[in-house]
């Protein structure tokens, strides 16, 4: 028995994900709602049991047992669930499952693939992953995805509907699910980005998402079937970005731009890990976006100063990204690199050669970058207009404060008129 208050932070969230994954394997994805309810109740039960008697050494096995029995009770009550009639035998087996901890990693892996069912819309995949794998409540998911709780509930029920209709009595074997690996990478990358890109004022919220994405990608990298070069590149990318996470926020919770970051605050261990995984990813003949993105991140991590960054390499890597997956966002980033490499005017020319698609019209970063480039070219008026537009669409306070500081600086430069 270990002491209850020595539980590491997030342990309950992660336990939740492991138990849901293990039960989904045992009972089938069509019962996901019952499984989640049972797991929730097992955690509630643990509140008194562990509080009084102390937490068991193997928390997941304990929770699994309670949740499994609970889920069976519920499913048995439903007359239609004839397929789980052999349940009492399975309960006995569950009680003395010795290699439980090892199996749970496999179950988590399988659950990731189930979340990435191609019949589930991508935003529902992401919500489902946050709910089942990360153990966030709908309210917590809403906060993290900048959307309403009602919206999250809708996305989740859409996802559960698809799983219910799959009508499989048990979760398919991992090998059958492998074609979905690209989609799994995508969701993990999105999960990481939600943490990394969004400037939540609460540091913890962002770091949590990044850590969870990294934890799950680690599971992929540890399994022979899913340890592909792309998985390694994705893991490298997460380590290399993660290394700079803390330095992106100052003491007041404001965003710090790359140029102004204190590079001594970057996490050297994480950079070393990232470079190791990047090396390992350099096999096979497929150059994925994760290889290129990790390559860009490594250029930043290895640069001694902002000025001494190899901007030409970075601009070229972005250009390769545009070839694989054309996106005005890559062009925007290339324009930033080009501005450093060949001068602000060259960057501005490149950015202005692109007509942003409608979905980008309200994207504050586009205007913010444009404003910076105008400013550096000496066109203060155009810069001010772009900053104002960016300010209108900035999603968080931290971003607004950063933009406002720059807008104020322009106002100070602007000649009186």
């Amino acid at each position, binding site marked *: 028995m270990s002491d209850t208050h020595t539980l590491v932070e997030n342990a309950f969230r992660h336990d939740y994900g492991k138990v849901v994954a293990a039960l989904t394997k045992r009972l089938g994805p069509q019962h996901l709602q019952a499984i989640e309810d049972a797991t929730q109740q097992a955690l509630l039960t643990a509140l008194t*049991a*562990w509080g009084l008697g102390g937490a068991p050494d193997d928390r997941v096995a304990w929770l699994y047992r309670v949740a499994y029995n609970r889920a069976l009770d519920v499913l048995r009550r439903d007359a239609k669930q004839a397929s789980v009639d052999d349940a009492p035998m399975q309960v006995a087996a569950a009680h003395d499952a010795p290699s439980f901890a090892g199996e749970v990693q496999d179950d988590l892996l399988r659950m990731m693939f189930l979340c990435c069912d191609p019949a589930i819309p991508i935003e529902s995949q992401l919500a489902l992953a946050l709910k089942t794998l990360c153990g966030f409540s709908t309210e917590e998911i809403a906060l993290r995805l900048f959307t309403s709780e009602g919206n999250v509930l809708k996305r989740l029920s859409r996802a559960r509907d698809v799983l219910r209709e799959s009508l499989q009595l048990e979760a398919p074997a991992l090998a059958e699910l492998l074609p979905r690996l690209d989609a799994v990478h995508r969701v993990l990358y999105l999960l990481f980005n939600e943490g990394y890109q969004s400037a939540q004022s609460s540091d913890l919220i962002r770091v949590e998402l990044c850590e969870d994405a990294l934890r799950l990608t680690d599971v992929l990298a540890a399994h022979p079937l899913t340890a592909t070069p792309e998985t390694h590149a994705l893991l490298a990318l997460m380590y290399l970005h993660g290394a700079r996470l803390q330095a992106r926020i100052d003491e007041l919770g404001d965003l710090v731009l790359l140029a102004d970051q204190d590079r001594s605050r970057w996490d050297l261990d994480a950079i070393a890990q990232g470079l190791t995984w990047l090396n390992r990813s350099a096999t096979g003949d497929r150059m994925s976006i994760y290889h290129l993105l990790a390559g860009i991140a490594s250029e930043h991590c290895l640069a001694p100063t902002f000025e001494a960054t190899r901007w030409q390499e970075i601009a070229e890597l972005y250009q390769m990204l545009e070839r694989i997956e054309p996106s005005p966002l890559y062009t925007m980033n290339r324009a930033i690199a080009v501005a450093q490499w060949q001068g602000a005017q060259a960057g501005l020319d490149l950015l202005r050669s692109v007509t942003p698609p409608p979905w980008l019209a309200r994207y504050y970063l586009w205007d913010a970058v444009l404003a910076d480039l105008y400013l550096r070219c000496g066109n203060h008026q155009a810069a001010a207009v772009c900053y104002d537009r960016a300010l209108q669409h900035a999603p968080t306070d931290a971003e607004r404060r950063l933009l406002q500081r720059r807008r104020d600086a322009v106002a100070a430069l602007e000649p009186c008129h």
Partner: protein
Amino acid sequence: MSKKYLLIYRGPRASEMPPHSPAEMQKFLATWGEWKAKFGDRIVEMGDALHDTGKILSKTGVTDGPLVESKEVIGGYSIVQGTSYDDAMTVARECPIMFMPNSRIEVRELMGY
């Protein structure tokens, strides 16, 4: 003279409790440790939690109980010591059980000495 009191934790079974996020529940679990730390010398026995269901033995035989339909079940117990009921209440009042929805504590003095 110090007396012993049995704290009987009564409340809804887990299936009847409103859902909480795992993160919230973990924070709640930590409050047991705080309670223990604060009243360590007053808690004679932390006690244990009880399963929702069990058996009831009577002269006519054995039946299942408490019934699944019963609104409230005994979820667990602890034993604390104090000079009076009022004194025992100061410990019980801060017990984490009091912060669980629809839960209450029955406090009963032990007669043995």
